[in-house]
């Protein structure tokens, strides 16, 4: 089908975008459009105004700070896939990005759009949660907020941003050089929404034991989650197979949805295997 009628606005600055968002009724922001445009074509949405933020250059920057990677909301997924600074400081992006949709959608899709869409199977929300990222927003009147990702994820496809707030960027705290990383997911076809996904970051101490670890699971429940039980089991361990197995079994307690693509029990079972594989791969890659 075709999109319903709407008024189109293409602000050239953040201030202008915020002013429009604060004053227009029933307005939607258009980022990469790889979900919104499909929803408009299917007439799931009837916005009166579309505010296109594709012409605001300041939202497209990637900056490496000593402690964090700052990614503008309108950075394209394809840019994250190939950016050498991202590859150097957060190599898990290079492994994850090719799993998101297809080349044609990554050329348009943005990180800010993915986070606000907050699809349960979305890879970027899971990566943000894995890193304890912080979402930066702005609203008219210079009202700025920084929202820890755990708070930003309010529920099924529901970020905790106000209707007049605009996500301007995401800060990913950097992990130590030589950290291990892995992203694993299972989808029926390349580029499909994953039935389950698992991601792991870890770094080893001088004694070869796991010093710091983060594990996240996506695609199986209404929101991506951290597997804090598994993190507690692994922390301080040498990452031996028995401990890894025990950690991956923490997936048994996760909330999981049943649908035509898979039952809850099946999704938990897939997640368990993916977590085990992600931890094993991250251990292999971690500098000893």
């Amino acid at each position, binding site marked *: 089908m075709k999109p319903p009628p709407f008024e189109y606005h293409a602000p050239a600055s953040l201030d202008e975008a915020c002013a429009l968002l604060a004053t227009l009724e029933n307005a939607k922001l258009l980022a990469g*459009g790889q979900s919104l445009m499909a929803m408009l074509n299917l007439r799931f949405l009837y916005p009166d105004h579309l505010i296109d933020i594709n012409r605001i250059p300041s939202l497209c920057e990637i900056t490496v700070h000593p402690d964090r990677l700052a990614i503008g909301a309108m950075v394209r997924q394809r840019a994250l896939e190939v950016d050498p600074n991202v590859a150097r400081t957060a190599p898990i992006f290079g492994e994850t990005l090719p799993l998101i949709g297809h080349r044609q959608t990554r050329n*348009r899709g943005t990180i800010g759009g993915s986070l606000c869409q907050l699809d349960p199977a979305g890879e970027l929300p899971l990566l943000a949660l894995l890193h304890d990222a912080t979402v930066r927003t702005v609203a008219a009147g210079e009202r700025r907020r920084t929202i820890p990702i755990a708070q930003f994820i309010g529920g099924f496809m529901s970020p905790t941003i106000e209707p007049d707030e605009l996500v301007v960027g995401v800060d990913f705290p950097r992990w130590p050089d030589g950290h291990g990383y892995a992203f694993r997911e299972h989808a029926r076809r390349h580029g499909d929404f994953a039935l389950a996904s698992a991601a792991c970051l870890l770094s080893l101490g001088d004694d070869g034991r796991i010093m710091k670890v983060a594990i996240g699971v996506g695609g199986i429940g209404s929101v991506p989650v951290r597997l804090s039980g598994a993190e507690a089991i692994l922390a301080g361990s040498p990452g031996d197979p028995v401990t890894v197995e025990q950690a991956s079994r923490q997936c048994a307690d996760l909330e999981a949805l049943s649908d035509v693509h898979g039952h809850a029990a099946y999704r938990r079972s897939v997640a368990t295997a993916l977590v085990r594989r992600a931890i094993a791969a991250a251990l292999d890659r971690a500098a000893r």
Partner: protein
Amino acid sequence: MTPVEITLDVNGVARTCVVEPRLTLADCLRHELGLTGTHLGCENGVCGACTVLVDGASVRSCLMLAVQAQSARVQTVEGVAGASGRLHPLQEAFRRNHGLQCGYCTPGMLMTALELLAENPTPTEADVRVAISGNLCRCTGYQGIVASILDAAAELHEHMGTRPWDP
């Protein structure tokens, strides 16, 4: 809603039209500019038939508004062959290797493959399959398409710099 005048470069020609903001780039190309080579299958970003290049990058033209293409450089299947009508080596390879049957997915396949070959002149079969994973074909079983793109890569590589269609 308020129509907007846009100017875009389509296959090297500046085109101007007045469009409703809700018009997709795909419908603009087909209905306003008469370029019906770009096909629409699903209109919700799944099938890849409507793939065109915008500023050199492949996009689904059903998931982009025409007004967003203001000042952009758009390449469609109509611009792939030379001005004389001589087919591009990629098109020749599709013909040679049975890379199409009904032809519905072909424009999207060609545009996707052009982006791949521009970046990676010597793709493996796996590279090709990943590249076209966002383009659905219901006729060929993909084998002929993969063979066509690999054949075109070899052909283009062999004659690099010696043919009039080379950049």
